[in-house]
């Protein structure tokens, strides 16, 4: 295993560089960033009535994040692997002396970077709420961090699903469905129903896996290590799953 780590990291960097430049070489990153900012703005300022609420916080803003990510993160991740299959470049990648885990991680990190860029572009609103009133900046900082962690986990779903198909449209639809389920798993409406049908143990287990369960404490300014560990483990697991899927296709090609 000597020399494995540099090998893994070099490939990660190579894949990250290539993928980030693809996001910006095609209109995808720009469209993503523009529509993301528009949507967050619309939902926060208009639908949640930010100015009417009269509080100098960003709770309404962060509250929408999981629901927006259900659509936006699959859009970022949908072509990560499906395009390689469609173009046939997966053949080239599989023949190169690179680390497969590194490729998977690098691609995911690239998508995560673009998602992070979207969040960074919302920072002016943080300044605005400070101007408007007495703001708990700790809560906002924690919320930003956890929102970005959650975005990574959504991208993990998208990356794994994208390794299943050569159609980015199919990857998108399946990722949205999977993302919705894992978000709504912690939704009271759903957990109450699971509770009444399958009993409280299952509803407790299901909601433990929900992104909501691990994201909502951040909105009260609580940074819990276990929530960070949850998202990091989820991302790690998705990298492992993506790798397995690609290795499987190498053994059992279509």
């Amino acid at each position: 295993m000597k020399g494995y780590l540099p090998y893994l990291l070099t490939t990660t960097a190579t894949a990250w560089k290539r993928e980030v430049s693809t996001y910006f070489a095609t209109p995808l990153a720009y469209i993503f960033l523009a529509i993301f900012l528009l949507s967050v703005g619309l939902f926060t300022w208009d639908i949640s009535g930010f100015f009417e609420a009269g509080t100098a916080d960003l709770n309404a803003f962060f509250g929408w994040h999981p629901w927006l990510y259900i659509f936006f993160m699959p859009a970022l991740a949908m072509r990560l692997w499906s395009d390689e299959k469609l173009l046939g470049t997966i053949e080239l990648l599989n023949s190169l002396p690179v680390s497969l885990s590194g490729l998977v991680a690098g691609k995911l990190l690239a998508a995560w970077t673009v998602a992070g860029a979207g969040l960074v572009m919302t920072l002016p609103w943080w300044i605005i709420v400070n101007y408007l009133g007495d703001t708990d900046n700790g809560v906002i900082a924690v919320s930003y961090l956890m929102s970005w962690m959650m975005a990574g986990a959504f991208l993990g779903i998208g990356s794994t699903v994208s390794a299943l198909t050569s159609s980015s449209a199919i990857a998108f639809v399946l990722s949205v469905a999977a993302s919705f389920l894992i978000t709504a798993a912690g939704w009271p409406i759903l957990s109450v129903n699971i509770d009444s049908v399958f009993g409280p143990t299952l509803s407790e287990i299901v909601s433990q896996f929900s992104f909501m369960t691990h994201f909502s404490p951040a909105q009260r300014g609580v940074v819990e290590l276990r929530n960070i560990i949850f998202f990091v483990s989820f991302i790690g697991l998705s990298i492992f799953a993506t790798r397995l899927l690609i290795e499987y296709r190498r053994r059992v090609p279509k």
Partner: protein
Amino acid sequence: MLLVEKLTKSFSQRQAVSSVSFQIEKGEVIGFLGQNGAGKSTTLRMICGAIEPDQGDARIAGYSIVRHRRQAQRLIGYLPEGAPLYPDMRVTEFLNFMADCHQLQGSARQSAIDRVITDTRLSSALGQTIATLSKGFKRRVGLAGALLHDPPALILDEPLDGLDPIQRSAVKTLISTMAPDKAVLISTHNLDDIPAMCSRTIIIDHGRIIADETPDALARRGAGSLETAFAELVSETARVTH
């Protein structure tokens, strides 16, 4: 240099490649012939590690593609069928990406990039995105990527496909120039390319090797014509297998 041992692969019910074995020494250029679906690409893909064999192995300078994947792949230059590339990349970006993948650094990196640009005559297309290139140019970009790390084993799947006659002869000359230092395996279904380029021909049919000899010896079977010889060999195996 390249030792192929009993490579076997089946897809669902169909046996695509059955126990294919051969050996290529440094300085040899092998023409790998067969009809469509005979198992050419599947064999090449297994040698490069793009897919994994059900059984058998390929060794490049002693490194097994199954057990020492990374070491073996460092020694291979592979042009996949259809030369798949990233359409959004510029030619220079692609070559730099390949250099990253092979961990070429410093002056060796730049000189390798310069060398393949000259060898594959890409200088006029460097700043273009791959999507805007002609088929012939794309093929040469793929070839440049395969040659970048100066590998001792070259595996080229239909390298002449889509090239015009002038480009074909340029690529053939390039391959002949490089041949003394490398083991080269080229798949083709165009028999005209064989005599000028190849020192040996291997014919595969229904996933099995049915001939492994020099182009001259092969031509003698068909009264001087490679085409006749090929057609006869293939129909012979058809009679045996059905």
